[in-house]
Every structure is written in structure tokens, then in C-alpha cells.
């Protein structure tokens, strides 16, 4: 990755100023408005470090002193997913978004918006509860709770490990959902169980259905995925796999679950349950 981006970064002008156009919102249900800030860019700046500069001196380009911009962040190394936002119209993590790549010249503009598929808490900070709720819909875990020690689980082969590893790198950031035309904003949690579940949960269901211990819940996961808002609500636009920062083969996972639900339905038909 560093080799691919190196030429772009070398071209970045030292000592330049960059404009940040930020979609602000004071709280849930409040109207949104654009504000612009002009930021001097130090070496190796990223979007988060620029937001920190704005927080230190929250003055817009028309000289107005405003409240500091609010954003969510955690690890600052693209493994937690908390700082996901829409940058220049596309969803990604802001911590790994380098200004030298996005705005190499004096006066370049970077636009920041909160993700549109989740309710805004404030400014760039959104409430991703539904994303985690959807993981619970497919029981995206290994069932090991009990009253006694279950001992060691079955061994995984190196081959299955290789397949599982990339699936396990999902950080629940929400990029796949933001880019998905079938996953839309649903502020009412009463509708979450019937609205589209999203590629992340389908991929996690695949991971745990394939896990030596996790597959105990395979039938329950497939039952959940066969219902309204499950696997069939996928429209195959395949944006999810294009925007996934972890390069998880999400569309492959969707096809795998498609096959598993097909077989599950046939088995159910003849088994009677």
C-alpha cells in the first residue's frame, strides 16, 4: 500500500492550506448545515488530526466562532471502525485518510459528512446500534456459555483458518451498509428485525456457520436469514465489496449464504421443520 501511494504523497505541497467542508448537525432531529474551515496542513496529517486542529480553533472561513466539530474515533489505526464517515462523497475511515493523498495542493477541498444510513448523534458522530443489533439477529458468536467447562474446541485446519481469517477482520465499521442501496436509514428500532440486515452480518453468519463450534447455531442463523430483511433482500449491487476497507469478500459470503439457505430450505421441506 505504501508503495502505491508514495508518488502521490511526494507531490503534496508543503505548508499548504486545505478547506474542510463539514456537514454539521447539533443533535438528533436537528437540521444539517455546511460549514467551512481553512486548516494549515502539517506533514503526515490525516482527517482526524485536522479535526483536532478545528477543535482547538473552531473558526469558520467567514470568521464565525462555532462549537467544535464532534466525531467518533477509537484506535486511530483502521481496526475499530468508529471513525467511519463520508469523505469526498465516499465512505471510509477518517483516521487512515491522509490529507497528502486527498488534498495535495493549496486550496484543495475535503468534504466530511456523517454516514447517512445511521441516525446522527451530533456532527460526524452517528449511532451504529442497528449494525450490532443485526449481528445479534444472526447470532454472530460462538456458543460456549454454560455451567461447566466445555474443554478445548475442535481444531481448525490451516486451510479453513486462511478462509476464516479475512472474514474475522470485519471491524463493524458500517462502510458496506453506507454504500448499500438496499440498506437504508431506519431510526425506529421496532423495524430493525425486518429491514435489510446488511452484508457485514451475512458475512459474519458465514464465518460462524463455518466455525467448528459456531456451526452449532447454523440452523438458527439460516432461519433468521431466510426471513424478511435477510439474505433475499440483497439486490446484488455489490457496492459492499468495493468499499470494504478490510477487503473482505462480502459478495462471496452473500453467495455462500445463498447456497446454505437454498440447501436449508430443501432440507426443511423434506424434514418438515
Amino acid at each position, binding site marked *: 500500500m505504501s508503495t502505491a501511494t508514495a508518488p502521490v504523497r511526494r507531490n503534496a505541497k508543503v505548508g499548504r492550506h486545505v478547506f474542510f467542508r463539514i456537514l454539521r448537525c447539533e443533535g438528533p432531529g436537528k437540521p444539517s448545515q455546511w460549514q467551512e474551515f481553512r486548516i494549515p496542513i502539517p506533514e503526515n496529517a490525516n482527517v482526524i488530526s485536522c479535526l483536532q486542529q478545528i477543535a482547538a480553533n473552531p473558526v469558520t472561513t467567514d470568521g464565525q466562532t462555532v462549537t467544535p466539530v464532534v466525531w467518533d474515533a477509537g484506535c486511530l489505526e483502521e481496526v475499530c471502525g468508529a471513525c467511519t464517515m463520508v469523505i469526498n462523497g465516499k465512505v471510509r475511515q477518517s483516521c487512515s485518510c491522509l490529507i497528502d493523498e486527498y488534498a495535495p495542493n493549496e486550496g484543495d477541498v475535503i468534504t466530511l459528512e456523517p454516514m447517512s444510513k445511521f441516525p446522527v448523534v451530533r456532527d460526524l458522530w452517528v449511532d451504529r446500534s442497528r449494525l450490532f443489533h443485526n*449481528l445479534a439477529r444472526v447470532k454472530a458468536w460462538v456458543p460456549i456459555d454454560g455451567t461447566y467447562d466445555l474443554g478445548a474446541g475442535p481444531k481448525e485446519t490451516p486451510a479453513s483458518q486462511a478462509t476464516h481469517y479475512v472474514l474475522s477482520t470485519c471491524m463493524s465499521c458500517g462502510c458496506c451498509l453506507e454504500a448499500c442501496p438496499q440498506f437504508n436509514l431506519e431510526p425506529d428500532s421496532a423495524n430493525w428485525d*425486518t429491514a435489510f440486515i446488511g452484508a457485514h452480518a451475512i458475512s459474519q453468519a458465514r464465518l460462524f456457520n463455518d466455525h467448528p463450534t459456531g456451526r452449532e447455531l447454523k440452523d438458527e442463523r439460516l432461519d433468521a436469514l431466510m426471513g424478511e430483511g435477510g439474505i433475499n433482500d440483497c439486490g446484488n449491487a455489490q*457496492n459492499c465489496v468495493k468499499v470494504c476497507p478490510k477487503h473482505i469478500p462480502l459478495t462471496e459470503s452473500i453467495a455462500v449464504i445463498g447456497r446454505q439457505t437454498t440447501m436449508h430450505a430443501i432440507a426443511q421441506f423434506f424434514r418438515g421443520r
Partner: protein
Amino acid sequence: MVSCRSAGLLRPGGTTGIHHVMQSATASKESFFQRHYFLFRRLHSLTGILPIGVFLINHLLTNSSVAWGALALREKTVDAPWWVHGAEYFWREVRWLNTQIPNLLLIEIALWGSILFHSVFGVYYAMTGSVNTARYAYQGNWRYRLQRISGYIGILFIFYHVATLRWGWTFLVPGGTVWSQEFAASTLALTLRGGSSGVTAAGLAVSLAYFIGVTLLVFHFANGLWTAAITWGLTISEASQRRWGYACTGLGTVLMIMGWMSLFTFAAADPAKLREMEERMTQKQAMVSASPIAR
């Protein structure tokens, strides 16, 4: 890592907890449609291929015979241009379809029922989506959008097509041509030209509507065939999806050429000459039917 992460977030009492999921699973009273959600979805996918897709292939194959029929016609009894020979072959095909296929009425009911089902559920499912091709202008996203647009327009086109050429809603046909089975080629040519006095503006509009309708529906079928393979879990890996994509593109291209060939030939053909051929064929057929050998 993910299991720890998700388990940690599913704390009891939280808005995202297991509690919520269990509550909704036990408390919900599902409708008939919700209980059989999977079945309806898969039937929607299946009907697009069988019978609708299979019919589309046959339909375009029969219609395009007007363009390639001259090559396939075994004996040419009259000296005429290639499209008259093609239309004669087409006439024989249409007659064969209408007289030799067993249980044609049942097949038609199944076909119309499937088109109705696929349309109603297709529109309902399409309403759950949104458009974001401006921001995510990927080819796949455009096909997702076009699949829905082609579905909407396709329903209108099929309705117009069947209403005018089958149910005889002649008030929707410029020139008021009544389509008939025995004179399928000439009446279709008149419909596409807007009447017997050359090509009219209204005729051109009908031809254009047919061009758009056929083009979009062929795309809809080819792209639908590609997505159906993912839906049913036939194509799993990116490579297999790409390979199946080539196959669907190939089939779509062939069908597109067949559709366009039929349309251009019927629109360009002289209806009077086609009528002449049809009368000759009908007379010949009547003679064959009346002969003692045929009885």
C-alpha cells in the same frame, strides 16, 4: 476478534442486546407473506427464468426468423425478396406454435400468471431499495439500478404489447391495425409503421417503444440470470461470478441481436407484400386441410 467485539457489545439491558431479539422473535405475529417470505422471494427469482426467460428466448427466436428464415426455408415456391421468404418461415413457425404445441392454453396461463407474479413482487421488492449511483458509480451498482428501471418500463411495455397484439386494444395502435395470428407479419409491420401509407410519426414512436422495451427486457433477463446464480448460491467466488457474467453477457448479446433483427426487419418490410405471402400460405393451408389425404 469479531466474536469478542460483538459479544462485548451485546450487554444485557443495552439497546442492542440479545434481549431485544428474543423479545421480537416470540412476540411477533407474522403474516402469511412473512412466514413464507423465503418461498415468495425464491419463486420471484425462479419465475424470471422459468417460464418467463425460457419463453423470451423462444419468442425472440421465432420473431427473428423473419430475418434469417430465408436461409432456413427448404423450398422457395415464389421469387421474392429475402424478408418475404423470412416472413414465410415465420408464418410456418407461428402456425406450428399455435397448432402443434400441446396444452398451449395451460402454458399461456402459467406464463401470464408468472409475469403477473414476477411484476407485482418485483415492484414491491424494488420499492425497498434506493439509488446511489452518483456516489458509488460502479458498474454493478448501475446494473442494480438499471435492473429496476428495466423492470418498471418492461411491465408497461409487456402490457402495451399484449393489450394491442393480443387483446385487440386497437385504440392504442396508430392506424388502428387489428393484429391477427394468420396475418401476424403484415399486421405487425403495419403496427410498427403506423398504417398502410408509409412510416408515420406515430408508427416511429411505436417502433421506438418496441426498441426500448425489447432492449431493456433482454438486459433485465441477462442481468437477472447473473444475479439469480448468486441468489441460489450457484456462483460463489468472484471468479465464478465473473465467468457466469461472461456467459450471461453472451446470451444477452445473442438475444439482443435477435430482438433488434426482428424489429428492424418487420418495420422495414412492405406490409402489402407480406399480406400477399400470408394469403398465399393461408390458401395453400386450406387446400391441404381440405384434401382427402389430410383427413
